[in-house]
């Protein structure tokens, strides 16, 4: 990005400018292999690729190497500080971003989604909601997508009520907690209950920064900074809190879901661009988005409120939010967020294909169906999960289409009558089954004639979506031989 600015403190190297040699120079160079890599150079390469972290090298953690460790920590530190919320196995890390745009490197630490509860909720309702938060999940191509944390809001603004609600929730759940109370007295009551669990303290404001900073230091808990719509104030608070000794900060520049949406998007962008492009340290902290604020307006229709919250959340996921607090528990609101988060945090540098060949499901025999698909990973995993869910006994041939889906592989001529014939031959499918019927994807229907000619097999055109495979087999298998 070209351009000028007045706020560059000092030039730090971007992760893309750091070479393995830069890292190797400070490693022990003993090639001990304790990290699991062949040698220190291999470790350095994976380190600058973001595939390993410095602490994966045991020798660098010894006293003898403390100077090198400190140097490398500074060299490799992401421009957006990584902040940990919670402890032990329930700890989550937010932020730790190296780049503004995903394709420049890859994004780390997928945005946790916290759902809110509040201290005036009747106990039964609280229990039900916490259970719902913990149990909500979606199986997406074999991965379990879940919600991640609980934000406890103080509506009572009363220390006793808040402390008691926090205690109840802590008893119910091990999930990482966000304590939301703008009065430091109320916050202190909550921290007395769960201080050792390292909850996120929400929040330090213009008027409470000192008291909240003391609480953050006392409990060694991360601190959110709330300066709605005022980046100058946000910077002032961050600067002051850093000087105060608070190291783990989280930034909330305010989420305006309706009026002010423009400011929300540009503030999030300005903060992240400042950190990643200009290495502005005051902006180098995780961003907190609060789509829940969609509920603070005058609108009374719940469906419209949920709709607004859903679209605000999805935009903030794309625009750099490192943590979200939401209210709607509806699946149609949450599902797009969970899936988009998963997608956005995949590594754009990783191969997108699975190995070609023939895969076996269940216990197929000589009469079992033979299906064929492409080696685009998502295509394969979708077909695989549908076959498994239906407990089918069958063979699935995976053709190397260079990682393209069925439709684009047909269009790009990677999935053709010839490539299908070659796959049948190279997988020696004729030896696996006693029939010669092949089920091709519905999206490759136009290949059926040519494929019959090139293979001599009977071609059955299957469903366009693999969720239809079980029904297709019920209706069309075994096929009539003409």
């Amino acid at each position, binding site marked *: *990005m*070209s*351009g000028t*600015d007045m706020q560059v403190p000092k030039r730090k190297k971007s992760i893309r400018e750091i070479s393995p040699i830069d890292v190797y120079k400070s490693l022990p160079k003993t090639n001990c292999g304790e990290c699991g890599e062949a040698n220190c150079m291999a470790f350095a390469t994976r380190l600058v690729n*973001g*595939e390993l972290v*410095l602490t994966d090298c045991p020798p660098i953690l010894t006293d003898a190497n403390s100077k090198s460790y400190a140097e490398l*920590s500074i060299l*490799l*530190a992401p421009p957006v500080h*990584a902040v940990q919320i919670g402890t032990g196995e329930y700890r989550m*890390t937010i932020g*730790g971003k190296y780049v503004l*745009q*995903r394709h420049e490197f*890859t994004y*780390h630490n*997928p945005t946790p989604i916290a759902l809110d509860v509040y201290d005036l909720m009747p106990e039964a309702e609280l229990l039900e909601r916490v259970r719902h938060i913990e149990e*909500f999940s979606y199986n997406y191509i074999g991965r379990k997508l879940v919600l991640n944390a609980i934000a406890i809001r*103080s*509506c009572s603004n009363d220390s006793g009520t808040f402390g008691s609600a926090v205690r109840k929730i802590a008893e119910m759940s091990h999930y990482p907690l966000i304590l939301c109370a703008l009065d430091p007295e109320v916050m202190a009551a909550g921290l007395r209950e769960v201080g050792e669990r390292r909850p996120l303290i929400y929040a330090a404001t213009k008027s409470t*920064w000192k008291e909240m*900073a003391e609480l953050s230091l006392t409990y060694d808990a991360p601190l959110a900074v709330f300066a709605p719509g*005022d980046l*100058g104030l946000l*910077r*002032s608070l961050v600067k002051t809190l850093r000087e*105060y*000794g*608070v190291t783990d900060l989280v930034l909330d520049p305010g989420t*305006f879901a309706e*009026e*002010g*949406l*423009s*400011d929300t998007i*540009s503030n999030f962008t*300005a903060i992240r661009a400042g950190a990643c492009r200009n290495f502005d*340290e005051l902006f180098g902290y995780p961003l907190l988005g609060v789509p829940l604020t969609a*509920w*603070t307006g005058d609108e009374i229709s719940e469906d419209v409120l949920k*709709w607004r919250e859903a*679209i605000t959340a999805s*935009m903030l996921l794309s625009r750099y939010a490192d943590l979200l607090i939401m209210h709607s528990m509806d*699946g149609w*609101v949450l599902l*797009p967020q969970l*899936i*988009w988060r998963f997608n956005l945090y995949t590594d754009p540098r990783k191969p*997108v294909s699975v190995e070609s060949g023939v895969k076996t499901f269940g216990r197929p025999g000589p009469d079992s169906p033979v299906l064929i698909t492409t080696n685009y990973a*998502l*295509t394969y995993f979708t077909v695989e999960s549908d076959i498994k869910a239906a407990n089918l006994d069958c063979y699935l041939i995976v053709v190397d289409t260079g*990682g*393209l*889906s069925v*439709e*684009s592989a047909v269009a790009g001529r990677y999935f053709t009558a010839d490539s299908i014939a070659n796959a049948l031959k190279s997988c020696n499918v004729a030896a696996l089954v006693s029939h010669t019927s092949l089920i091709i994807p519905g999206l490759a*229907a136009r290949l059926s004639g040519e494929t019959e000619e090139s293979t001599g097999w009977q071609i059955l055109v299957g469903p*366009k*979506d693999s969720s239809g495979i079980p029904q297709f087999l019920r209706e069309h298998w075994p096929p009539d031989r003409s």
Partner: protein
Amino acid sequence: MAPKKIDIPSGNEKLLALAPQLLELLKGVNQVELENFTMEIGDLELFIPAFGSMPAQGASSAGPATPAPAKPTELFRESYKPLEFTYPGKIREVTLGATRAEGGSRSKTVTIGGATTPAYVDGLHLPPHLPVIALDVFDMNVSLPKVLRENVGDVMEDPAEWAKMNVKKFGADVITIHLMSTDPLFKDASPATAVKTVEEILQAVDVPIIVGGCGDPRKDADVFTAIAEMADGERLLLNSVTLDMAESKTLERVATAARDHDHILLAFTGLELNNAKELNRRLYKFIPPEQIVMDLTTVALGYGLEYSFTIHERARYAALMGDEELAHPVISAATNAWAAREAWMKMPAEYGSRELRGPVWETVNALTLLLAGMDLFLMMHPAAVLTLKDVIHRLGKPGSSKTDRIEDWVSVRL
């Protein structure tokens, strides 16, 4: 032709008035009992490219802050001055449709493109032309998800009425007529029939028209050439020309027809910037760059939307940094969102009704790509259209945040 600015058809009041309409749209569909359906994906530009795994990265232990010896007692005063980023490149401006004075018959034209920064990086550099929305019309009865069909069921047999309804009722800026019946695998309708359909659409509505082919490089060439000639001077957007056409030796014919009769070409490639550049280079031989719009492929959320998102971010950034072969406006077929099973399939109750899941899927698909710099969307569901218009409007209003609205969100009772 000089690009013209069009008015953005919405004041604040008007949008507020839309809220009940959104409510109605969301509620109205709640009561319908639905069966699963078979989706006709042939006409959608469905494309599923790629996939990776989610890395987890531990926290770095290096903290940027060093505790000062004495704790501050007063707030430090730090200023904030927005960073001013400038780029050498600029996205070309392309005008769709032509008025009578300009040689066509439209009463409205639409200009897209012109961006000089990435989309919505700040509130100060708004795009000179706000993104616009085209609504789909099909020339034959296609099987659509029920959630979509119930809004258009009455007009599905009559493309002209369908187009009128899209403009009047749902606020379409542009109409896309998909000539699915020309597909040799369906009805193999003749170019003459297609010409007649497009004539009817041109007469039915006065907004610019996008003409969608069937994807067969030879048939599309015949159809587009005939339509280009009939609609001389109308600045139709022909959707689309491809490298397949180059291979079938039909690209030159379509491109020169578009040039001679003053139409726009949509250059379609599958998530591969080198292909997009190559196709544009081939087109430059026959037609001015100001008559080219790009479709880099829109994939459904859950099926590879991240590839669409990232390729658009890369393309736009490269164009702004000076790559003129990518400095064209871009369109997104947000309708492709409906290819995701999560959009149309009946699922357990905890995932909500598909009457809401479907429209939100299309909306999220479109909003995600809006942030990547989209200039024009092809859409279908009215609630998604309404939301896009609302968000585009709001993103054009910097400085309208009201702090008191959210400063007490922590204690709000819900």
